[in-house]
C-alpha cells in the first residue's frame, strides 16, 4: 500500500520573510494561527485556495512551498 504525504516549507519561508509571525501570516491568509501551526507541523493539508494564498504572501510558486510525495510502498 502506498502512503502519500504533503510536505511544506512554510516555516522556512516565514524565517526568510524577516521572521514573519504565524499570526501575521494567518491574518494575511484569512485563517487562524492554529491552522498555520498545524500546516507547518504537517498535521493539516490546506485547501488549494489557502495554499495559493500562502504562496502569494511569500511571492513564490505553489510547488516551492508544498511538495507531494508518494513515500512508502508496503
Amino acid at each position, binding site marked *: 500500500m502506498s502512503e502519500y504525504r504533503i510536505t511544506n516549507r512554510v516555516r522556512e519561508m516565514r524565517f526568510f520573510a524577516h521572521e514573519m509571525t504565524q499570526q501575521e501570516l494567518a491574518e494575511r491568509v*484569512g*485563517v*487562524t*494561527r*492554529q*491552522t498555520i*501551526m*498545524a500546516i507547518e*507541523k504537517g*498535521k*493539516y493539508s*490546506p*485547501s488549494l485556495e*489557502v495554499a495559493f494564498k500562502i504562496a502569494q504572501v511569500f511571492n513564490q510558486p505553489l510547488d516551492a512551498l508544498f511538495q507531494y510525495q508518494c513515500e512508502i510502498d508496503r
Partner: protein
Amino acid sequence: MELTFKEKSAWISFICTIGIFGYYFVELMALSGSDTGQTRTAALWLLGKILIMSVVVESVFHGMLAVANPSGAQMNGDERDRHIEQKANQYGYYVLSTGVIIVIGRMVVLEVFPGFDEARSSLAIPMLTMHMLMFSFVLSELTRFGAQILMHRWGE
C-alpha cells in the same frame, strides 16, 4: 495553550452538556422506581426546565465568548475548523444512529413480546423510550464536542 474561538465554543458546549444533562439524569434516576402519572408529570417538568436551562446557559456563555473575542466570532472559524466540525459530526452521527437502532429494536421486541413492557421494566423510568432516545442524543452531542476538542488539540 492558546485556543481558537471554535475550540473554546466546543469546550463551553461540552461542559454545559455534561453539567446540565448530568443533573437531568441524576434527577431522573431519583424519579425512577415507579412509573405513575405523578412521576411522568415530574419528568416532563424536569425536561422543560432542562431544555430552557440549556438554551439560556449556552447562549450566555457563547455571548460572553463572542464579546471577549469579537474577531474570532466574526470569522466564525476557518476551513480547518469546518473540517474538524464535519468529522466530529460524523462521529456524533454514528453514536446517535446506534442509539436509534437500539431503541427501534427495543420497540420491535415490545411489539412482539408485550410481556416486556415498560411497566414491568426493572428500571421503571418514566417515559423510558423517550429517555433512551434523549440519552443517545446527549451521548452523540458529547461525542461531537469531545471529538472537536481532541482534533483541535491533536492538530487535525
